[in-house]
């Protein structure tokens, strides 16, 4: 269950995060919702490690195989003998292999990005349109059976200067 507090600036949002951590909420359950990126630690600390690049690498390998099969495979299936030149020409095969490698690496990067961000979401999540206008959102995740913790988090955020708070329960 997610609880969201909306703050007018980074100072109050930062204070809320500090209070939440002091009250025993694990830092990895707290995140910020902003319309511009902030350096790590200004609002919350986030895991910087990502795995989506591997999908890009996988896409590139798949593209290379597909490109080679497309260029060399069609030449092999429909052979056109030109003098004593080879049926499978290295130069065009290299070009097509390269282009498809890059194409699928790009596609892999984008698909991997969405997978890693878990977008599009399968359920409705807490959000406030004021975030797009510069407000700062601080969200904390608790389990469904921790309703009291959610209420506690809302109180802490209100005390820190939240303009309003909402909970996933109210959606």
């Amino acid at each position, binding site marked *: 269950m997610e609880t969201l507090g909306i703050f007018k600036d980074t100072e109050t949002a930062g204070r809320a995060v500090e209070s939440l951590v002091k009250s025993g909420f694990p830092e990895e359950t707290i*995140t*910020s*919702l*902003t*319309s*511009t*990126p*902030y*350096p*790590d630690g*200004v*609002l*919350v600390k*986030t*895991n*910087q490690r*990502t795995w*989506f*690049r591997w999908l*890009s690498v996988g896409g590139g390998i798949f593209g290379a195989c597909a490109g080679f099969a*497309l*260029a060399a*495979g*069609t*030449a092999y299936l*429909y052979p*056109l003998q*030109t003098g004593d030149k080879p049926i499978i*020409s290295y130069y*065009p*095969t290299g*070009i*097509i292999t*390269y*282009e*498809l490698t*890059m*194409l699928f*690496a*790009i*596609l892999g*990067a*984008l698909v*991997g*990005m*969405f997978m*890693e*961000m878990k*977008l*599009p*979401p399968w359920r409705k*999540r807490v*959000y406030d*349109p004021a*975030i*797009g*206008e*510069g407000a700062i*959102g601080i*969200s904390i995740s608790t389990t469904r059976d921790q309703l009291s913790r959610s209420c506690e988090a809302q109180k802490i955020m209100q005390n820190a200067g939240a303009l309003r708070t909402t909970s996933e329960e109210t959606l």
Partner: protein
Amino acid sequence: MSEHEMAAKSAKQLNDEMLSSMRTPTWRWYGLAFFLGAVAAWGLSAFTYQVMTDMSVTGLDRPVMWGLYIVNFVFWVGLSHSGTMVSAILRLSQANWRRPILRAAEAMTVFSITIAGLFPLIHLGRNWLVYFIFPPYPSQRGLWPNFRSPLLWDATAITTYIIGSSLFLYLGMLPDLAVVRDRSSGWRKKIFAILAMGWRGTAREWVVFRQTSTLMAALIIPVAVSVHSIVAWDFAVTVIPGWHSTIFPPYFVIGAITSGVAAVITLMIIIRRVFHLEDYLTPQHFDNMGKLLLVICLLWSYAYFVEVQTTWYAHEPIEWEVFSFMSGKYTPLLIFMLIGNSVLPVTALCFRKIRRSVKMMLVITVLVNIAMFIERFLIIVPSLSHKNMPFIWGTYSPSWVELSVTAGAFAGFALLYTLFTKFFPIVAITDVRELDVRQAEVRLGRAKLPSITTKE
């Protein structure tokens, strides 16, 4: 806009100003869209006439079988080159001044490569048999479509580039689409909600987003270089005098960047004026882009000089014949090209005052692109006119059909761009606002310092 002025504006004000292009269209906007649509429709009707008749309605005839359509193709591919590439290079180098110009440049790439991709199909003749060129089509009727033909290299490279640059444009827009979603209502909100994919701007989303932007920028640059190299190989791998040259791929890439950078500046000037974005596209941006154009024009001048000097010194008869024919028959065009691509930009852009003058930059960049279109013409037509066999030497003049299709292509590009600016944010809002946040000043003793240090 100065940092102080930026800081003085709230996020809402910044959003309002940068999304001003998306306000309800005025009658002038409808008038422009109608005019561009009418010219594009005229081009389309000329193409329909060509399909209904045959290729004899064009000026193409032996020995010149590549004419204005292929000139257009090379020109539009070239134009597409710089948008994404400039954006990607500036992203990788973390140049802060890039932020307001990213979107305009990336959108230009997508629309110009789309227009470019149409020209091989327009040029094809018997368009209803277009599926014959797509592999793996069996070798019926004695046709062997295979990848030995550079035209299929083109098709593959352009497809990759259209998809890659469209995704690059979309990726950069993702946080902005969420901002637009939050401000929209009705059917617009539904569309932008789908396009924004549920983006909320969590800290984790930003981490992944930034890493993806860097990776995509690194991936798209070699694709951009390969596309124009492959277009150059369309010419260079033939044995036609004037084309069969090892310098062609880098020369084409340099030419492409020249026209692309010039076009980005032209579009920046138009967008700035039309949408009153003077606070975001400042003389500093034109100064920096002017320096970039100066360097690229110098490189182009060097490459052209090397090409001509080698031909002149070697004096290989057929190569020299082609150059003599070109410089004799097309003297005014050749002079215009040299002035527009070399003499004028190289001399004028040395002066800071000119680089910071919006009017002067508009004149220079438009001339650079007219000259670059002429350059494409002078590469293609003279070489085909005077090939190795003198008994089939000839000339070429474009017909009204080719000129109409060309006009339609320019109008189509402008129309796509006009529609894009109305439906999508033309300035990268979150990128600009990120700089605003980073440069917001805090007081330390008597001094004021940036709140977050950034690499310049």
